């Protein structure tokens, strides 16, 4: 991946200091007939568009779908979304670059988001991030990112591994996660959010007849 040059004032946007050319043709909506789009992707985007009273609402779901197909929001993916939705690639790119979950550079297929926000950082989130990076050891297939609060502070420090929330993590869990992903198995099955009981006594199946320690045993 090439590093984008920083310009004098710190901008990474090439052409920021070039004047607009008023004679240039306006952005064109790519013609669906001439843009190759995988049939399944096209059908999925069209199904999403049908769900809303205004089709443009389907742009984020469409980008999710395109990213799943292409691995990232590549220029090609953006062109395809634009063609199916009948809007300009610029409008699609504007949205794709706004949201954290849309990748605007090629990335590895294993997405690991390590939370480093307040509650996780109080419990060692940044160390987990380091340990995760060390465990993956530069493997390009792993897309390890420091992420903002993922809404699972009860299991801090935590991470989202391909969408599966796991925690509380120790540094040794990180190697296990990487190994689990490489072998294609389930990730830290015992520490997944889906098996975590409610902290409140009233939430227990028996409405709080047992104490916390009894349940954890």
């Amino acid at each position, binding site marked *: 991946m090439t590093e984008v040059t920083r310009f004098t004032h710190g901008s990474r946007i090439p052409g920021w200091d070039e004047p607009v050319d008023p004679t240039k043709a306006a952005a064109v909506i790519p013609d669906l007939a001439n843009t190759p789009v995988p049939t399944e992707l096209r059908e999925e985007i069209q199904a999403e568009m049908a*769900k*809303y*009273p*205004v089709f*443009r*609402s*389907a*742009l*984020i*779901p469409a*980008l*999710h779908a395109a990213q799943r197909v292409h691995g990232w929001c590549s220029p090609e993916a953006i062109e395809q979304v634009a063609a199916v939705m009948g809007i300009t690639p610029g409008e699609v790119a*504007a*949205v794709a670059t*706004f*949201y*954290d*979950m*849309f990748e605007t550079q090629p990335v590895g297929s294993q997405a690991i*988001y390590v939370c*480093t*926000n*307040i*509650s996780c*950082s*109080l*419990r060692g989130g940044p160390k987990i991030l380091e340990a995760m990076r060390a465990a993956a050891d530069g493997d390009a297939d792993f897309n390890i990112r420091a*992420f*903002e*609060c*993922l*809404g*699972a*502070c*009860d*299991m*801090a420090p935590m991470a*989202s591994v391909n*969408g*599966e*929330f796991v925690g509380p993590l120790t540094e040794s869990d990180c190697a296990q996660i990487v190994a689990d992903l490489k072998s294609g198995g389930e990730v830290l099955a015992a520490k997944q*959010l*889906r098996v975590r*009981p*409610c*902290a*409140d006594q*009233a*939430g*227990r*199946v*028996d*409405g709080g007849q047992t104490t*916390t320690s009894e349940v954890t045993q």
Partner: protein
Amino acid sequence: MSAILFDRIDEPGLNDIDTYERRGGYEALRKALAQPREGLLEELKASGLRGRGGAGFPLGMKASFIPGADIDKYLVCNADESEPGTFKDRELMQKNPHMLIEGMIIAAFTVDANRSFIYIRGEYVLQAEVLEQAIAQAKAAGFLGDNILGSGFSLDLVLHRGAGAYICGEETGLLDSLEGKRGNPRLKPPFPANQGLFQGPTLINNVETLATIPAIIRMGGSEYAKLGIENSAGTKLVSVSGNVQRPGNYEIELGMSSRDIIFDLAGGPDEGREVKFWFPGGSSSSVLTAADLDTTYDFDAMEKAGSMLGSGAIIVVDDSNSVVDVALTLASFYKHESCGKCTPCREGTTWTVKMLQRVQSGEATPMDLDIIASVQEQIIGNCLCVLGDAMAIPVGSLVAKFRPEFEAHIESARERNGLGITPPAASEEPVLSL
């Protein structure tokens, strides 16, 4: 304690419609559909329920702002839950999705909206799957779709996944995002109740607020209002996290002592550690110290203590942590999430991070602390939304309440990093380095 939202929520299969109905689910919907809309609105008003998303605006009043005219109206559930420290809606949606759906149908019927949306944050993959399945079940059972239970009322419900942006938890940012745009907040007024989604009147509420509606209808508004205390009716889900031994979601009656929540329910800090400060309502709330632990946990008491109940997320920080680290973590988060639309927020968050980095490395002077404080004051109230305020309030309160620690940190970091301890002599021309 009366559990309403969390009552046996761990019961296996509760996310399935059969189990939910066996436990009396969708009975409130039948009851509601048999009533006139005005009566339902009165029940919601009588309940005294205040919005659980952060602002605490009364639900009944908000619903009454939706015009009665025969135009397209919308109901939007804000499930973007991205305030650091908040994770209550996640547990509700994952374990009892039908309670939210039932609440939404009743709310939509009350304001006569025929289209509704759940905007769930993109990171909540499991919860989105659970909701998707629950919506399909509710459709199949005739609770959603055309002519619900023969009432003549029709409602369409679409689950919309976001893609990772804190700002989309702000209601107008959320609406723009739901329209397929960048999540930039809008100028208010007009408020969403008049001009919201697709320019139509829109009722937008948090997951917890909407999920409480079936209980209000079942119990009756005035009966629900007996829970909690005056001006803070009902139960509230509190997410306790940070340096506590039993972090998690707890359902409390409003008006409970904060100390009881932090120590009795969540176990307090580890053995030998003490509460240094705590955020009572998410990372956007002004911090309180150990001296405020006996404040009751309700809207008015928190406001009186100089903070807010917010989303009900208590983050406890113990005495092993540096206040500078916490301030920098917070400021960096808000800098990353600022959408860039308003200058005070975009620039204010950026410069606050830069100044706090100087504090951390020891390059700052005590005067920088004054500048940090003044920058926070200039952000508050000067933007379209409260994201800037959400950084300025806690960071400002940290600097105000822990100023000696900031100053001591600057001194020790300066010595540690060999930056010398003498600032430039007064006679020298000040060097402006940016």
